């Protein structure tokens, strides 16, 4: 068995790849469910029911997908330019802090203005915190994987300090959480009797905007060019540093918006448990979507459904909901293996 380079991968293969990968993940995942003492079929039925089986389940899955779309976009845009931003988690919390700072009573504007203001503040905060790793990279060649990753912990500890100290809400009965976002800043619920809020619309709009930027504009060309080939980009007169900076601003801004939508949409206030690793899952979302902004919507909804469904599954079939992590991890690995198959063909025999 050996590998042969394909000249051009057929389009249907690229489109089929994520679907096949998910299938593979479910098949392999079945073994883990059996190991955990459950029946895979009942477990998967419970999972699908829990994530898609009712209007409420669907809205829950979509609500969970919102932050993942934002962080998925953040990773997709950055990775396109080969800027490895692993710090979406921290940037998300920065966005959440900005939303808390601006949205808890300092100013009060009508919702139509207040909500955009919160998102802009959150995006700016995400950008600003990413500026540090970017400048270290462009000016001193410091590897951004290390700096963005480690900043996550710094930011999380900082949030912790704020919540235990100056920002602690006296009305929260001693829980470490900040004050609520005022009513005009709260994202309205768009499906009655659910938690699905306006964030989903904003997230989808941002996906389309990012797709259009990458595809139709000079910026998009430059981002892709820098990701593919820096030497030729320089020859074309594209400033690598400027492009990296621009990509980082998009990426940090999108991750910051994830924080805003969680604080102003789902939770209503900032806590340390605001994000169960949305920033990191965003990387999986982006990879599963093959860095395509529209694909990010689909892959975020898919991953969110698995997480939401797994909770239901673990309640009814009594197996740990960590199965969700296993399913996500296997689908990601399958996509990576599969994307190799779009570039190479397996030839059996010698």
């Amino acid at each position, binding site marked *: 068995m050996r590998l042969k380079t394909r*000249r*051009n991968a057929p389009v249907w293969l690229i489109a089929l790849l994520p679907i096949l990968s998910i299938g593979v993940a479910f098949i392999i995942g079945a073994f883990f469910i059996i190991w955990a003492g459950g029946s895979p079929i009942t477990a998967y039925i419970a999972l699908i029911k829990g994530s898609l089986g009712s209007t409420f389940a669907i809205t829950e899955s979509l609500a969970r997908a919102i932050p993942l779309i934002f962080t998925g976009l953040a990773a997709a845009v950055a990775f396109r330019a080969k800027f490895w931003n692993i710090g979406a988690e921290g940037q998300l919390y920065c966005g959440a802090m900005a939303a808390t700072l601006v949205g808890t009573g300092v100013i009060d504007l009508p919702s139509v203005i207040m909500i955009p203001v919160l998102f802009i503040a959150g995006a700016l905060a995400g950008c600003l915190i990413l500026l540090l790793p970017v400048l270290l990279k462009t000016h001193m060649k410091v590897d951004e994987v290390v700096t963005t990753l480690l900043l996550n912990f710094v930011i999380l500890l900082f949030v912790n300090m704020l919540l235990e100290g100056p920002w602690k809400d006296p009305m929260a009965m001693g829980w470490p959480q900040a004050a609520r976002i005022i009513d005009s800043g709260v994202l309205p619920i768009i499906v009655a009797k659910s938690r699905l809020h306006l964030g989903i619309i904003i997230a989808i709009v941002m996906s389309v905007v990012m797709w259009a930027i990458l595809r*139709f*504009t*000079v*910026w*998009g*060309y*430059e981002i*892709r*060019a820098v990701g*593919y*080939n820096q*030497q*030729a*980009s*320089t*020859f*074309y*007169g*594209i400033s690598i540093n400027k492009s990296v900076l621009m990509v980082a601003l998009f990426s940090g801004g999108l991750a910051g918006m994830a924080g805003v939508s969680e604080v102003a949409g789902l939770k209503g206030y900032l806590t340390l448990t605001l994000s169960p690793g949305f920033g990191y899952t965003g990387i999986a979302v982006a990879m599963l979507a093959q860095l395509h902004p529209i694909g990010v919507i689909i892959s975020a909804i898919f991953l969110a459904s698995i997480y939401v469904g797994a909770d239901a599954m673990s309640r009814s079939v009594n197996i740990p909901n960590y199965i969700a992590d296993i399913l996500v991890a296997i689908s990601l690995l399958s996509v990576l293996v599969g994307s190799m198959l779009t570039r190479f063909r397996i030839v059996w025999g*010698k």
Partner: protein
Amino acid sequence: MKKLQFSKICKNFGSVVANDNISLSLGEGEILSVLGENGAGKTTLMNILFGHYISDKGFIEVEGQRLTPGSTRASLDAGIGMVHQHFTLADNLTVLENIILGTEPLTRLWSQKKQAYTKLKALSKRFGLLINPDDKVADLTVGEKQRVEIIKALYRDASILILDEPTAVLTPQETTQLFKVLKEMVNAGLSIMFISHKLNEILEISDRIVVLRHGKLVGEVATKNASKESLAEMMVGRKVTRPAYEKLKIGKAVVELNDVCLKSSEGSVGLTNINLKIHEKEIIGLAGVSGNGQAGLASIFQGLASPSSGEFKLFGESLIKYDPRYLTKSGVARIPEDRTKEGIIGEMEVWENFLGEQLRSKAKSGFFIDKKQAVSSAEKLIQEYDIRCEGPFASTRLLSGGNIQKLILARSLSNNPRFIIANKPARGLDEGAISFVQQQIINAKTKGAGVLLISEDLDEIFELSDRIAVIFNGRLQGPFDTSTLNINQVGLMMSGEMKEDSLHEA
């Protein structure tokens, strides 16, 4: 009995026929040249011989024994050694370590360096391949690295040596040296297959020549009966006309360098007090051994670097903005040295690469890519410059070297430039493409452009240039009128000697 025999080899890649019923043989003590343009099927044939590909039909025999298809090990064991165009050496190891790498079984605990050392010394002495086994490969010159590759093959007791475009990276002196070694080896009974598209060299070194075209074997001649013209015609399939030089009345100065200096940076020589004036309707050839400041000079003209001191006048005005886009917009055509790494972005589509430096100037309101316009102009240029590709949406990495160069020429020359900086524009291309590239440059000159032609090929420089300048260690001599120079004088200046009379300096 023939040393090596290819019988009716066929190989298709999808709908592309790479090798079509090729039969050829190699005798003992013979140098056989395999001539053909890029894409004629030379490399495929060698890959089949070496077990990288399996032929669809046909077989190969070594000394009458059938060779197991698809097995590199079998080919090595049969005594076939290959020297690739791109070296396959580990830079951080010594010469000796590189040579024994892969020859020793993994299970052996101590490598037998001592025996290897003795054998290596003997080989190097026998064939005049001077090399110090303890040198680190990273410190070797290109010519020396090639010697290591050859010794590596000999060390494995190769009796058939395949050389793939061996002179592409060598200086004229190194080529002469290599040919001496090859003659030695043939005298000692080895057989050599020499793959090339350089006609002069093939005529000099080989006993017999076979010509491939579009995957077919189209001709076989004894070298003594061959001429450059007949070979070129066989290879290209039609008469090849070299572009004709014509002296024109020069116009205004297009670029002028006054005492330009450039600080040396890691790995590249700086520039010291460069003075150079290039006029409309003239081609200045810049000769020099690679790495003597050509890269720095080119990067100034291409807007990629700004001089540390001195003045660069473009079309009569002092240039302050060193920006590729600004230069392109002002009327400079830029042809980069490394066409696949610098000139195009392989992963992008052809129409996107046509935008290149003009991305922003051709965008609607400077921001939105005008795809419709870009695609239709790409279509037009693909036609006009006869770029062989599936169309504007083809992935650029799939184009051949010659077609990539055509793309770059089309992109830069279609804007009617007034100054052209061409850095080794014909390097590594085949005959057909070379004359195309040279003709395009001459046409641009006729239309009024001034050209700086950087090249390592002195023949090319003498054929095309009105005046020749020589660069050595970041300093420039000349330019001198081409008619007042001969190749020897230029060769001496390239190694740092001063030209006595600088009377003709313009």
